[in-house]
C-alpha cells in the first residue's frame, strides 16, 4: 500500500515536471494540450511517458523536440534512473522512439531525421516565436491601457514589474515574457529597457506600429497552426453519430485515460 502511494506521488511529480515541456509551435505546455497520455513510475526509479500529437502527420521536428524535452525534464528529477518516452500513432513514431531512447546524442538524431537541421538552431527559432507572441500580447495590452509609444519603448524593467494587468491572457504572459527576456540576456538590470527586439535592438517610438505589424504577421501564422492543432487534438479519434436529435460527437476511444487521472492510478 505504502509502495503504491509512493508510486502515485512520484507520478504526480513527473506530471508537474512535464509542465516545463512546451509545444514549440504553440508555446503551450504539452500537459495543457493533453498530449501526454500516460505516466508510470516503476520501482521508484524508472519512468515511462507516452504521448500523442493531434495528427499522425504532425511535423517530425516538433515530435522530436517534444520527445527530447520530455526525456530531459524527467531526467532532471533526482530519483529518476531511467526514462522511456514513447510517441504513439505518428508517421515517424518508430524513428522518434528509437532516437530519444537510444544512446546517441539528440543533435545527431535530429539532424539525421530532420533534413540536416541543427537542433539548437530550431530551438532558438521557436524561442524567438514564443518571445514575439508574448511580447505582442503585452504591447497590445499596454496600448489599450493608454501608454504612449514613447512611454512603451522607454519603459524600464523595474517599471514593468510594477504594472498590474487586468486581462487573463496578459497576466499569464507577463511572467513568461519576463523570464524569456532575462534568460535570453535581453534585459538584466532594473534600468534596462523591457521592450526590445529579439536581436536586442531598441525600438524607436515612430517604429512601434511597424514593429507590432511584424509581430502580428508571425502570430497570424502561429495561430493558424495553433487553431488547427487544438481542434484536431480535440477531434482525433472522434466520430460523428447521427442520432434522432441530430449529430453529436462521440468519443469512442477505448481505454484512453485522462491525463490527470493517469497520474494517480
Amino acid at each position, binding site marked *: 500500500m505504502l509502495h503504491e502511494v509512493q508510486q502515485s506521488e512520484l507520478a504526480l511529480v513527473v506530471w508537474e515536471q512535464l509542465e516545463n515541456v512546451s509545444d514549440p509551435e504553440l508555446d503551450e505546455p504539452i500537459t495543457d494540450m493533453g498530449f501526454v497520455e500516460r505516466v508510470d513510475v516503476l520501482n521508484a526509479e524508472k519512468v515511462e511517458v507516452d504521448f500523442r500529437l493531434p495528427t499522425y502527420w504532425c511535423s517530425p521536428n516538433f515530435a522530436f523536440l517534444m520527445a527530447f524535452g520530455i526525456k530531459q525534464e524527467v531526467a532532471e528529477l533526482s530519483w529518476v534512473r531511467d526514462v522511456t518516452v514513447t510517441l504513439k500513432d505518428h508517421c515517424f513514431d518508430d524513428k522518434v522512439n528509437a532516437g530519444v531512447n537510444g544512446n546517441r546524442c539528440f543533435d545527431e538524431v535530429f539532424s539525421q531525421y530532420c533534413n540536416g537541421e541543427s537542433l539548437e538552431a530550431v530551438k532558438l527559432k521557436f524561442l524567438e516565436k514564443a518571445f514575439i507572441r508574448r511580447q505582442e500580447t503585452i504591447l497590445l495590452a499596454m496600448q489599450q491601457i493608454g501608454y504612449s509609444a514613447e512611454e512603451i519603448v522607454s519603459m524600464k524593467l523595474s517599471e514593468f514589474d510594477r504594472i498590474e494587468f487586468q486581462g487573463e491572457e496578459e497576466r499569464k504572459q507577463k511572467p513568461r515574457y519576463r523570464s524569456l527576456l532575462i534568460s535570453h540576456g535581453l534585459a538584466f538590470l532594473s534600468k534596462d529597457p523591457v521592450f526590445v527586439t529579439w536581436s536586442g535592438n531598441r525600438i524607436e517610438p515612430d517604429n512601434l506600429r511597424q514593429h507590432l505589424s511584424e509581430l502580428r504577421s508571425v502570430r*497570424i501564422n502561429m495561430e493558424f497552426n495553433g487553431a488547427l492543432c487544438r*481542434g484536431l487534438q480535440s477531434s482525433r479519434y472522434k466520430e*460523428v453519430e447521427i442520432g434522432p436529435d*441530430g*449529430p453529436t460527437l462521440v468519443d469512442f476511444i477505448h481505454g484512453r485515460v485522462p491525463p490527470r487521472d493517469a497520474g494517480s492510478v
Partner: protein
Amino acid sequence: MYRTKDGKEIFVLDGHTHFWDGSPENQANVHGKQFIDCFYAYHTNLSPETELWEKSKFEKYSADDVYRDLFVDGPDDMAIIQSTYLNDFYKNGFSSIERSSAMASRHPERFIVNGSFDPRDGEKALEYIHYMKENFDIQGVKMYTAEWNGDSKGWALNDPAAYKCFELCDKLGIRNIHVHKGPTIIPLNKDAFDVHDVDHAATDFQNLNWIIEHCGLPRLDDFCWIATQETNVYAGLAVALPFIHSRPRYFGEVISELLWWVGEDKLLFGSDYAIWTPAWIVDQFWNYQIPEDISAERSGVQLTDDIKEKILGLNAAQLYNIDVAAKLQQLNASPIQIAAE
C-alpha cells in the same frame, strides 16, 4: 448561384473541390487510413455542428451527394474538381481524373476537372500530361509537392524535372497550376510549408497562372510577399475560409493581409468540398465584414460586395475563360434537379 438578401444574384465558381474515395476498401495501408482520418478531423473541427457528416459518408460520397451539396443545397454555379492521387496510400488513387470525369460527365456544364502529375515520374509524367490533355482536355492541374513517392517525401516546383512538365503544360495550353501550399498533412524531408519555390516557378513561367491553395498558410507573410512580386500568382482561400465560423476575428486578420498584399483581383473562393460544404461558407462570407480595428491596421481594407463577387466567382472565371453572363444563361436554361439514381 447565391442570392443576396436584397435579391442580387452572385455567380459562384467553387475553385477547390474533390470527388474522393478514402474508404477502407481503397486504402492501401495505414497512411491511407490516417490521411482520411485527418481530413475528417478538419471536417469535424471547423464545420458548424449542423453540417457534420458521418464518417462512412465522408470516406466515400456519391455523385448525387456532390450535385446536391454544391448546386442544389449549395450556391455553386460551377465547381473545379481537383485530382489527387496519393498512390502510395490508395489502391486506385484518392481522387482520380477518370473517376471525377465520369461523375462530372452527368453535368459537364457545371464542372471543370483538373488533372495532376508527379514530376518525379520523369518521362512517364510527360506522357501522362499528354494523356490527360487528349482524353480530358484539361485546363489545369493540382500539384501536391509533399506527396510521397517511393523513397522521396516531397519535391519542389523548381526541380528540373518539374520544369520539363511545366514547359509541356505551357505548350499544350494547360495554364492553371493549382499548388497545395497549406497545412502540412504530409510533412517530410522537404518543408511542406515552404512557398519559395513558387517564386522561381512563377517568374520562369509567366504564361501560367499559379494558384496557391490555402494561401500558403501557415506561411502567409512569405506567400504575400511573393504574390506581391509576381503578377501571375493567385491565392486560393480553401481552409482559410472555414475560420470565418470558428474564429471570425482571425479570419479578418488573414483576409486583411491578403487584400492588402495580394489584392482583390487575385483571391479565389474554394470550399474544399467534401471537407466543408459551400452553403454555409458562402452565406457567412457574404455577410462578413472585417472588424474595424483589424481593418484599420491595413489602411481600412474592407470586403465590399463588389470584392466579394470577384472572390466568389469572377476572378476564377477569368482564369478559366468563362463568359459569366453566357454561362448563367446556359445554367438557367436547364434547371437544377437531382439526377435519377
